[in-house]
């Protein structure tokens, strides 16, 4: 190892390997560089460690406990109200709704990165299924763009509503016979027939998904 390699690796911050250490022991210049680097790394850590709001970790942990209690209470009341047969029906996972969740988990960030489409083109593309004006009455459209979905082109909408964010997948020309549901990895999806096609609504909170579905239908 030479001085250039030593300093290049040090600057990447990955830590000193045994080969690097052996070089430093024999090189005064790199030993001095190493000392300076350590001082810089300490300051860098101090700079990156911005103050965290008081009690933040505890507050976040308590929120998870409260959320679990609410979830268990809701699941229990659904089971009691619906009975075993009804619960089986509710728990049935629809493949298109599951595909909607998979899209959000795996493809959404990539789809957003491809950039939005012009508003006029978006309005025309979704008009026969769900007019853009109706979406905008429910929340603020943060992104709208085409995406491949379920063997056809769908329109991916990131919608900000007062309760948080939801994703819509507008599927022109694919009208479902009725509403479909799925739950996977903490995400919920409802797919419902609208106009000449269908719309998938996906979010982390079931109540918000249902509320947005109701608002879009209204």
């Amino acid at each position: 190892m030479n001085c250039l390699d030593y300093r290049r690796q040090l600057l990447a911050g990955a830590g000193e390997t045994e080969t690097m250490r052996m070089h430093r022991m024999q090189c005064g210049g790199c030993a001095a560089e190493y000392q300076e680097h350590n001082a810089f790394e300490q300051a860098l850590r101090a700079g990156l460690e911005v103050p965290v709001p008081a009690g933040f970790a505890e507050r976040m942990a308590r929120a998870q406990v409260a959320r679990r209690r609410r979830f268990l209470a809701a699941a229990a009341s659904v089971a009691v109200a619906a009975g075993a047969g009804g619960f089986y029906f509710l728990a049935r996972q629809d493949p298109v709704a599951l595909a909607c969740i998979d899209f959000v988990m795996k493809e959404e960030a990539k789809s957003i990165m491809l950039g939005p489409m012009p508003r006029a083109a978006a309005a025309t593309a979704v008009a026969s299924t769900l007019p853009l004006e109706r979406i905008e009455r429910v929340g603020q459209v943060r992104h709208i763009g085409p995406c491949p979905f379920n063997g056809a082109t769908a329109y991916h909408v990131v919608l900000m509503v007062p309760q948080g964010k939801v994703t819509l997948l507008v599927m022109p020309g694919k009208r479902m016979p009725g509403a479909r549901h799925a739950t996977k990895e903490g995400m919920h999806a409802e797919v419902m027939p609208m106009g000449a096609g269908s719309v998938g609504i996906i979010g982390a909170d079931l109540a918000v998904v249902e509320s947005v579905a109701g608002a879009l239908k209204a």
Partner: protein
Amino acid sequence: MSFEETVRAHAADLYRYAYWLTRDRAQAEDVVQEALLRSWRAFPRLRDRAAAKAWLFTIVRNEFLRAAGGADPAAESLDGLEVADERPELFGLEVRDALHALPASYAEPLALQVLGGFSCAEIADMIGTTEGAAMTRLTRARQALKRLLAPRERKAGRS
């Protein structure tokens, strides 16, 4: 380790990481909250609990991308980076000032490496690039920080 214990252990670093993505305290808190909401139900299915930290950092990143509506930090560059005014301050705070001048695409891998303790290969995987490109970004980020801090160090040396 339960989900609550995992949250307690990593919440501070998740917040700090979210801060360097958003550069805003309120947004950082929102991003972490949303990310934890997404992750808590999936947590029981997480097979490798030792990977929980990297998993949570990735969810925070995805949530940031979602909230930012596609503002990918990787799109930024170091071009036009200006050396800040000379101001005598504590060194840690000086570095923080300099970090604020650094584009998010360079501050982010530094936060992942220094706060998260992730290797170059893990960082590359998290930000969707190659290990070599992640190393280059980390090197350039440190070089840029040192360049930004140089006038202050020179001034400190003179006084």
